């Protein structure tokens, strides 16, 4: 039943196109395997998605992973010029070390494997355990933890900032570098550089419902929004009355601009991301406001990405990510990519 009904321990009414909350990820993977066998292979146990021609001999392998529910991230980014493999966990739950370890082996072309990890306690610990196992198995691994979310106050004593939109950009750019034959050390350093120059912030108009929980991740009034959300349906830092798009864009963009800081003369990649339930027409309105705001500060949008790329199930809302560009990053962004969700030549 697509309703979580009486005999399901979670109760509640979930309106989803699913068969059973427990089979969501497995059946999604079956769908991906059936649809995209020309591009990727799917391993079911342990679960990972790997490009069909992996391992690419002599090339650094790049893997990422995280909870499901953020589609197309990460599985949609497996392919030439981006990820070599992706490890999907259960919905909003980071994958397990055996998944990453198996994926690491599967993409090891002899030049080492980079793990791109979003900064969540679970993701970091599971990737750590995987690396401990994999290095025992003789594969050289490196890890970069992405933590670009300025909504989270950083501190030595906390879990730190979350990894959000910047992850997609890091995966694309590092994938291009690996494809060009860069070494593990070079790709790792590049990934750190991208993480150092990218900042994000998100907001929600509605919560989302995980299939397992069956109830909304938070309650929002008809005239309220959450500012500073992550990508797991968790509440944000502030709840505010709803505002016009121009004002919302300002609320998301100013903390980003001030944090790095981005300054007059900078060229940026502007990434307007939908959280899953927001129509594209609204994302273009957001982009329009972002463009005007940055223009007013002498910051030039040199590249852009607009759409649902790192989502929170069916949540309505958006995030804004800015990456400071230089010639190298721009060229790597422009380099060919051929994945399910991101494709150009």
């Amino acid at each position, binding site marked *: 039943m697509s309703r979580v009904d009486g005999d399901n*321990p*979670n*109760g509640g009414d979930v309106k989803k196109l699913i068969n059973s909350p427990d089979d969501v990820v497995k059946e999604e993977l079956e769908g991906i395997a059936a649809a995209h066998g020309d591009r990727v292979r799917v391993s079911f146990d*342990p679960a990972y998605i790997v490009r069909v021609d992996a391992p690419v001999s002599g090339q650094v392998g790049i893997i990422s992973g995280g*909870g499901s529910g953020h589609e197309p991230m990460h599985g949609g980014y497996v392919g030439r010029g981006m990820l070599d493999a992706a490890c999907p*966990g*259960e*919905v*909003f*739950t*980071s*994958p*397990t*070390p*055996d998944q990453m370890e198996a994926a690491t082996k599967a993409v090891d072309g002899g030049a080492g494997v980079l793990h791109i990890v979003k900064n*969540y*306690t*679970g993701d970091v*610990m*599971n990737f*750590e*355990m995987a690396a401990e196992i994999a290095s025992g198995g003789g594969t050289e691994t490196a890890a970069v933890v992405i933590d670009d979310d300025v*909504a*989270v*106050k950083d*501190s030595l*004593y*906390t*879990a730190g900032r*979350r990894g959000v939109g910047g992850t997609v950009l890091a995966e694309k750019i590092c994938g291009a570098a690996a494809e060009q034959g860069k070494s593990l050390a070079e790709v790792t350093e590049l990934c750190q550089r991208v993480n150092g120059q990218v900042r994000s912030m998100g907001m929600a108009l509605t919560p989302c419902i*995980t299939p*397992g*929980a069956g*109830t909304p*991740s*938070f309650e929002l009034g008809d005239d309220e929004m959450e500012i500073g959300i*992550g990508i*797991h*349906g*968790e*509440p944000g*830092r502030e709840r505010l009355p709803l505002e016009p798009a121009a004002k919302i864009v300002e609320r998301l963009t100013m903390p980003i601009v001030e944090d790095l800081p981005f300054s007059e003369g900078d060229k940026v990649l502007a990434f307007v991301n939908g959280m899953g339930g927001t129509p594209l027409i609204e994302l273009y309105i957001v982009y329009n406001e972002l463009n005007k705001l940055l223009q007013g500060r002498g910051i030039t949008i040199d590249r852009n990405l607009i759409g649902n790329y790192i989502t929170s199930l069916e949540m309505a809302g958006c995030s804004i990510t800015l990456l400071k560009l230089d010639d190298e990053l721009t060229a790597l962004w422009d380099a060919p990519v051929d994945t399910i969700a991101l494709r150009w030549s």
Partner: protein
Amino acid sequence: MASSISYDQVMAWIHRFADVTIEQREELTRLDTAIGDADHGTNMARGMRAAVERVDALDGDDIGAALKAVGMALVSKVGGAAGPLYGTLFLQMGNATGGRSELDLAGWSEALDAGLKGVVARGKAEPEDKTMVDALTPAVQALEHAQNDGADLSAALAQSAEAAHEGMEKTVPLVARKGRASYLGERSAGHQDPGATSSYLLLQAAVDSFG
């Protein structure tokens, strides 16, 4: 009242904890909805279901082997923060009890202490960070006190569960500094930590199984 814990009782404890996480799945997830990502109950239930399957397939009476099997199952089936943390807890308890078919109070206390140390090494949480550590730490301390006071096993277990319960309740006013709840900043105060809650359930399951 027995003064030691048999292999069968450890198995009963594992089963009991599995049953309780499945029973309390909704409640744990509800707590995680408030300050996390609404999956702690699902995670623990999935993991403990797998753990039970694995230990049921074991032969022999090595408590350490059984606990390690639980740890491996949790590590490979749970993911998230709870997977490595509870996985490490059981793996380290298994390391501390390898080859033993019976545990006395000291043995149980040392095992739980080793587990807690593993959790802290993996997650780097300190007391009052609003995590499972806030339930486990007082539980370990209570076991040590009970031992020093010469309490019997059953009383010691009850005191440790009681201490875990108190620790769990004390997470309510805390502002989270570790895990997902930390992203909420001040808004995390006023909610009970889901991981501390499942850790209390773990200690209470020991009372129910070893009593």
